[in-house]
């Protein structure tokens, strides 16, 4: 039986598709959020408060940090978790606020492209950082 509605809120209400994507993204937001509290607060503490804060940050400081795999991993996980956490949050905001399907589509395209670019560039820098180039 189909209901003849003037303005059906739901043109299509698909039967269960057995996709756990929304569940996984919801769970990811919680877990990455907790991880980011540690990663970001630790990062801010090291960069801004610990001995001298921002004033001692220079090329040598960054080079020194990234010579250690631990800090590489720290920054890499911070980059990926923050970017996907924020991107997923923006995805839900777009889903909530975009009124037209075309608007929603293009906003999401912009979002995903920017996410890929930032993740690729950031990962590239962390892994290929060359401490031997002259720092001036």
């Amino acid at each position: 039986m189909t209901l003849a509605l003037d303005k059906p809120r739901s043109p299509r209400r698909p039967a269960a598709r057995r996709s756990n994507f929304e569940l996984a993204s919801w769970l990811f937001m919680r877990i990455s959020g907790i991880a980011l509290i540690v990663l970001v607060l630790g990062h801010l503490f090291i960069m801004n408060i610990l001995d001298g804060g921002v004033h001692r940050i220079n090329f040598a400081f960054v080079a020194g940090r990234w010579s250690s795999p631990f800090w590489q991993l720290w920054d890499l996980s911070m980059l990926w978790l923050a970017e996907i956490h924020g991107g997923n949050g923006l995805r839900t905001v777009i889903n909530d606020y975009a009124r037209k399907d075309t608007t929603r589509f293009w906003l999401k395209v912009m979002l995903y492209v920017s996410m890929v670019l930032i993740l690729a560039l950031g990962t590239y820098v962390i892994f290929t950082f060359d401490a031997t180039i002259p720092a001036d």
Partner: protein
Amino acid sequence: MTATVSEEKAGSRGDLPPVPDGAVTVTLKILRFNAEVDSEPRWESFNVPALPTDRVLNLLHYVKWYVDGTLTFRRSCAHGICGSDAMQINGVNRLGCKVLVKDLMSGGGKPTTITVAPIKGLPVHKDLLVDMEPFMEAFKAVKPFLITYGNEPTRERIQSAHDRERFDDTTKCILCACCTTSCPVFWNEGSYFGPAAIVNAHRFIFDSRDEGAEERLDILNDAEGVWRCRTTFNCTDACPRGIQVTKAIQEVKRALLFRR
């Protein structure tokens, strides 16, 4: 229909009744809409004598019966049971028959204005009358009925008091739509099921006699299901039956996370 727009407005029950002792005049500001005349909803104010013990529904009756009979709204039992008269009162979703004027009075003898608008997110037919069909459709989609498999038992389906307690809160729902139409995610043009549908799914998912929990959980695991809930608690605040709506939604999320 013999009434025309140009005709002098009159109530459906004739002359104004005597003003009772102790009544104060309040301004009732109603968001009205008549698709035949208006392109946009418009505010209209009425001065209504009100006793502190009156309900907002009494004020609407006063307007409809004695001032302007064209005012349109739903109400049936008028005692908070049927859930017909959900409306936005002073910006929050309430049942018109459960809100007392004394709780809306501005203090210090200042004049009181009470605003009444239709519940949001559903198409308005006329004045406070909205199309409930999208709401009911979401309700039907979660299969709000007992699902069992296998042979019928020869006697009634027994349930312990403890098992009954598990879903007691969500049995109280009267489908007034206060919660669903207070939800910012529902206001959006998507097809979010809305709190009321999830509450009624919860009522069966956690019923020990029901065997359809998996089907309902699958439906609510959808992109338009429980994961769209942003826990703004508007629904819990709006529920005239005091159902912990957001808690029920979270319990469904938890069931989805930890189901085997």
